[in-house]
């Protein structure tokens, strides 16, 4: 498999001097689903914002499908990396669902029937056919999350990055989302605190702490390593059966 994402030596500090990313390396193969785990403040969201050039690195490089991120490739990288933000209300800003899903394709220069086809395609991928004329404000949390995903799928990205995709979802909404993500062919980087969700959806996980990758491996194995989890303020939910993990990692 070819690498769809290559991050090497990425460092970033906020203007106040606070260093968030420190010489971070990360690779993702095309079609791979990877969970990005780590405590609050580890730099997960900051990393995500670098992947399509919202933040620009102080040092290091990012390549998407072999294309180096710089001023000239920014538009192309933003098409290839679809960012789904944590609060769907930040992502859905147009008056109707159809216009929101069409916003990205319109910025890519598509119009008319071609754009409408993209919107229909993306809505059907998330099981939201017929949502087009509705106002994003009147959707439920789970529906908003799915439409937010559709807004980036409409740009036909190579890599989908989701920030806390399960936050605020009820158990049914969470299960619908995991089914949906597992059914997509796109490479996915899912930033989450929801360890069972990571286990369910992502065969591989990466733990980021203090701006660096501290562990990278099979999700079930990482989650079975209680010392590793404890060292980075990660915890499995109460009542979660660890033997379930050993069974999964052996399989």
């Amino acid at each position, binding site marked *: 498999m070819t690498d769809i994402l290559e991050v090497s030596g990425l460092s970033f500090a906020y203007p106040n001097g606070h260093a968030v990313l420190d010489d971070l390396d990360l690779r993702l193969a095309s079609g791979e689903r990877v969970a990005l785990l780590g405590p609050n403040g580890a730099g997960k969201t900051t990393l995500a*914002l670098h992947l*399509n050039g*919202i933040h620009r690195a102080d040092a290091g490089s990012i390549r998407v499908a072999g294309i180096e991120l710089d001023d000239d490739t920014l*538009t192309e990288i*933003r*098409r290839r990396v*679809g*960012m789904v*933000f944590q*609060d769907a*209300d*930040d*992502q859905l*800003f*147009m*008056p*109707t669902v*159809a*216009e929101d899903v*069409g*916003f*990205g394709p*319109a*910025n*890519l220069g598509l*119009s*008319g029937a071609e754009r409408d086809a993209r919107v229909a395609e993306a809505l059907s991928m998330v099981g939201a056919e017929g949502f087009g004329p509705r*106002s*994003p*404000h*009147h*959707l*439920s949390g789970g529906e908003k999350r799915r439409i937010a995903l559709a*807004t*980036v799928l409409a*740009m036909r990205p190579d890599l989908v990055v989701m920030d806390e995709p399960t936050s605020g979802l009820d158990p049914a909404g969470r299960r619908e989302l995991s089914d949906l993500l597992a059914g997509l062919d796109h490479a996915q980087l899912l930033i989450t605190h929801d360890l069972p969700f990571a286990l369910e959806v992502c065969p591989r996980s990466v733990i980021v702490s203090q701006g660096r990758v501290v562990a990278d491996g099979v999700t079930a194995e990482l989650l079975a390593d209680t010392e590793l989890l404890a060292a980075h303020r990660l915890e499995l939910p109460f009542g979660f059966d660890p033997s379930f993990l050993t069974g999964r990692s052996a399989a």
Partner: protein
Amino acid sequence: MGAGHTHDLHVPGDSIVHRTAPEAKLVAAFVFVLAVAVTPRREVWAFAGYAVLAVVWVVASGIGPRRTITRLAVILPFITFAFFLPFIGGGDTTDVAGFELSTEGLWGTWNVLTKAVLGATTSIVLASTTPVPEIVRGLERLRMPRLVTGIISFMFRYLGVITAELGRMRTAMIARGHDPRWLWQAKPIASSAGAMFVRSYERGERVHAAMLARGFRGTMPTFDDRRAEPTDWLRAALIPALAVSLALGGLLT
């Protein structure tokens, strides 16, 4: 999610007014209100004509008289002052039920009242038959700058979100014993307005990041290339054309 419905004035329907293109309706409403505004107040017959036209509009839109009257209540706070005019106006006086009232003042009240009611009815018909995104699209087709229509549509989109946030802040204050009943308790309200400003600003930054992430380069894309048909304009022109002839009649007599 209920908060989102409070600013949604649109009444779904399939009336002739609903089916007319939004830009034609916008121009019709504007011309009608303009005709009413320039009509001299003593031309009572012209106002009777306008009232008939407004009633025709309401009936044709199928939004119902009760809903129209309920929504008209929003103008009450704005016209209350007009009822003081007969008491404070100078000049000749007229005896009304034992009160010596200023004739000039009475005409003033009549002027404000009729024009406000006719203007508000027009906007009620417009808002009830046209969803906000359509109104924005109509304004765009009337060549309003994309920046302005962008601001309007963002305001509409986030009004509910921000109102809900304000509601949660209020609930949090009440839950900790705040009871804003007296003026000197207004301080927390003022500081929460500051907090709301900061929160809205931060949301603005996040929305902007989300727009950039999807390739936004400073211009809002257009989503509708359809234009109003000649039949739309003809249909919409009927009532404002009659109103303009009434206004001209009033101005020339």
